[in-house]
């Protein structure tokens, strides 16, 4: 019995280890390649750890390629999206949790509906409208587009956080003569700060990882965001894979760091609805 148990445990950890290797291998290879000098990329057999590794690919990217520009574009668009979504979502979440205790089912259904629309369908009229308005290649168009798919998620997450703030606090403030806007700004927002921070970071990451909208709404390479700029590098005549992988590291690293920090919130937010159903 005892021996069987430890065998089972060994098998279990072996299975976990195999899955882990398969899951993480692409990341290892991405980092490994990004550290190789250009001459080593096309070696066969490939080197699994470069003996003369360097940060050359990164320096080339940052000094000779427009990667920094892409990075800044991603940063501006994601920050703008976060700001816009957070303001609108906080107002809505306050309204929904404080004035519609029944849950405003219809509105939540509307959010769900917008969240489930295929983005390839929306992107076509969006492109037409923005091109008619002369707004292609602007941060404004990207922020609007990104907010359209980030918002339902932000609202939904904030509802959870706002709901956990006891309503007795509001009622006490009303007795003291506070207006609803004062309650919102001076009581609810400060109390919901951890939630707001989490939602802000998620919104930021959703925007940061987005691809299709920016692909369609930007035609000028100086307006490319990271994901589009990187995918575009593949189309170049001779792909510099070490630089491309270095770019992928630069795009992916902030995401992985932020997500790992937020993992607990993420799990709660995503699973709460589905699991408790």
């Amino acid at each position: 019995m005892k021996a069987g148990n430890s065998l089972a445990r060994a098998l279990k950890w072996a299975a976990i280890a195999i899955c882990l290797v398969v899951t993480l291998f692409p990341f290892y290879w991405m980092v490994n390649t990004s550290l190789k000098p250009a001459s080593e990329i096309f070696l066969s057999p490939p080197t699994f750890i470069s003996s003369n590794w360097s940060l050359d690919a990164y320096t080339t990217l940052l000094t000779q390629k427009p990667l920094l520009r892409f990075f800044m574009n991603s940063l501006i668009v994601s920050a703008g999206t976060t700001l816009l979504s957070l303001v609108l979502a906080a107002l809505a979440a306050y309204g929904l949790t404080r004035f519609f205790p029944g849950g405003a089912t219809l509105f939540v259904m509307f959010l769900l509906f917008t969240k489930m629309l295929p983005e390839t369908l929306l992107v076509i009229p969006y492109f037409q409208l923005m091109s008619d308005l002369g707004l292609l290649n602007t941060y404004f168009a990207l922020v609007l587009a990104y907010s359209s798919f980030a918002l339902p998620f932000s609202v939904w997450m904030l509802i959870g956080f706002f709901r956990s703030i006891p309503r007795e606090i509001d009622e006490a403030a009303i007795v003291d003569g506070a207006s609803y806007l004062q309650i919102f700004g001076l009581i609810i927002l400060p109390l919901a700060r951890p939630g707001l921070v989490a939602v802000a970071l998620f919104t930021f990451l959703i925007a940061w990882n987005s691809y299709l909208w920016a692909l369609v709404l930007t035609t000028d390479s100086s307006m490319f965001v990271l994901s589009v700029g990187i995918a575009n590098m593949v189309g170049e005549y001779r792909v510099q894979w070490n630089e491309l992988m270095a770019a992928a590291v630069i795009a992916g690293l902030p995401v992985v760091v932020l997500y790992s920090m937020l993992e607990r919130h993420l799990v709660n937010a995503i699973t709460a609805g589905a699991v408790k159903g």
Partner: protein
Amino acid sequence: MTDGDVRPVQRGRGSSAWTGRRRWIGHAFVAPVFIFLCAVVVLPLAHAFWTSLHRVRGLSRSFVGLQNYERVLGDEAFWHSLGVSLQFTAISVALHVLLGLGLALLLNRLSFGRRALRVLFLTPWMVAPAVGATVWLWLLEPQFGVVNYLLRAAGVIRAPLAWLGEPALAFASVVVVDVWRGVPFVMLLLLAGLQTIPPEQYEAAAIDGANRWQQFRYVTWPNLRYLLVVASTLDVINTIRHYDIIGVMTAGGPAGATEVLPVLLYNTAFRGNRLGDAATQGVLLLIVVLSFSAFYVRITRPDRGSPAA
């Protein structure tokens, strides 16, 4: 009214004028989001419907009724693409759920390291799909890619394969990448579900002499069944409308082998410059997605249903 009798008024039962005012204020807080979403989602959606009823040539558009639908539905490319989409989604989702369940079961009752492992396993899902797909392009590169090297070194294949160059292989490749990216999300949901099963149920089963398999069959499975349906449905909705991975890796090729509906849509609109047809294909894709969404809404409580991811 004195301070002393504020309470009944606050409870909202006092006067209908008060509840009316309250509702009005509530609407005022929700209105900005509603108006915003109408402007950036509902308006473009209506525009797409409108476009699908027109022939668009450059700047001119003329109303053609349902002609676009007639043409798109009579077009073999559309049916081919729908078939590819359904195959891609069915296989990917089945693998997401199967592997996600396996992983969740592996991680569920670990005595240590569960949280760290959960973060590690989640990594493919965190990274932008377009960036992940780019990394896979390099892994699968025919001449110098590491996948060919490893498979040859292991004796699985004799000659390097052009993973994205042949229809069947390309389809398999994009499925693999989508599975790599999609398993973590399902695992996350199922793991959370497993954690909610009271340990007493397992203890009771163990006392009754149930073995591992019986514990799974009579405790885990009934507890998890509902969540499995929810997770699969969500996953179908997310997979069938996903563009990025295939868009970056093959753009639908070779010979349309990976041209799922979202990719067909993009190609029709932005490579073929046929916006009317693309909008029509989009509306048809929407119908497919919404039928799954309707199922999702039916099985979950909509006010709790997660619009996540």
